[in-house]
């Protein structure tokens, strides 16, 4: 096999792998976001409990990190955030942020 063809195949593989990586991250985000939906209406409606739609990835990430760090002001969000590792916080924040667009 010619080197050019081989590297083209390799590049294709890399692309495939990264695409499926992104798809997998989105699926992880979707599954994690199902937990959010038990308390936060994800259609932009709802009362009293704040909406998480339209907040943006950075704000969601920072909020989850802050909730994970402290029991105050909300022990429910503290328990939820404590169960998430960094990678999970990143995927759920990215996923929920993308839905608001």
């Amino acid at each position, binding site marked *: 096999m010619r080197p050019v063809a081989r590297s083209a195949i390799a590049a294709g593989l890399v692309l495939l792998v990264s695409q*499926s990586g992104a*798809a*997998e991250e*989105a*699926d*992880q985000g*979707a*599954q*994690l*976001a*199902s*937990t959010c*939906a*038990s*308390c*936060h*209406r*994800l*259609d*932009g*409606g*709802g*009362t*009293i*409990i704040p909406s998480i*739609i339209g907040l943006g990835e950075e704000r969601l990430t920072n909020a989850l990190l802050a909730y994970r760090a402290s*029991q105050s002001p909300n*022990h*429910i969000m*503290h*328990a*939820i955030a*404590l*169960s*998430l590792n960094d990678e999970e916080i990143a995927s759920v924040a990215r996923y*929920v942020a993308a*839905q*608001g667009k």
Partner: protein
Amino acid sequence: MKSWTRREFGRLTGAALLTALNQPKARGQAKARVVVIGGGIGGATVAKYLAATATAIEVTLVEPRQSYATCFFSNLYLAGLRPFESLSHGYEALAKQYGITVIHESAAAIHPAVKTVALNNGSKLSYDRLVVAPGIAFRDRALNGYDEAAMEIMPHAWNAGQQTRLLRQQLESMEDGGLFVLVAPPNPFRCPPAPYERASLVASYFQRRKPKAKILILDAKDSFNAQDLFQDAWNRHYPGMIEWLPAQFTGGVTAIDAKTRSVITEGATFKAAVANVIPAQMAGRLAQQAGLANQSGWCPVDPVTFESALQPGVHLVGDAIIGWDMPKSAFCANSQAKACAFAIAADLTGSARFPAHLFNTCYTYLAPDDAFSNAISFKPVDGKLKSVISFISKVEESSEVRRQAARAAEGWYDAFTHDVFG
């Protein structure tokens, strides 16, 4: 051109949030079939999440009732703080928005060996996977004299519906100064704080309308869920109105006499003006008949997939399962249902598997403007569901914090029922 209101637009973007998962196995094959029996919180949630995220699966929901009334928040109705209609949720959105086939029939029998469900109308449904969410049943002969006829005089009101309305009517027509007796069940039972929340909210109703009335709780246990929070609230809000007698004081409730509306313990007989008898419980009848329950009366499952330990290809969620540290609550049923739906989707369509996140969150009312909350996360450990992190409100919290929790609970009810039925 149609102009979109913010609400309608929100609904559209929200519908997009439950996006389809990648389902590599499913390409070019006939659709896999999942049948869900039971349209309570667990069953409806499994059906919705499968239909919305595993688009390669055809979902059928079998539920005889046209609508479901939630047990959670029914204590607010009993206290005259919420109309009964506000507890009721139909299946239209599950059918129309998510394409679930909803069959309003009872399941007569299941045949796991040939993977079929027989319905009461004589028809048969084939499945690749079956989910059974039968809720609870009352144990036979748990209390002498407490039969179907006695339930119409001394209601349990532990499945929301006609029984709940009956109890409300009785409380409304009770004279001031009457004794309301609440018989609290042994563990495990549906919604551990609920009998005590019921006593609290009925007390708030009595305080407003029948200030001389008394409440007596005859418990099958010697302690109960969040006891310090309840007893603190009873002293603060309803001094002298609620008396709780543990089993060690009474010897336990042994019989019911519906004719005299009396509750009989080992040592004494208590004649009630209104009695709410909540009997000992077990997994719903269908689970018993189908061999899904073990000798405990509850259903053993795999803590990751919620597949029955007794019948392969059949999954169970909600109050009927042996949940280990997970209590029998609507929130747990909803959380288990999502994990179960994603596990079934992974098996049937090849979608990716991730560690499940299981939670319980409950808001419990001590008075109309005083509620507490708890939050627990669970993980499968050594074949069991173990609690990992647990928080609960504290006795010394300010009344403002409690007022906020009572308001948050209303927002939660709206969002949660929307997550299940909307």
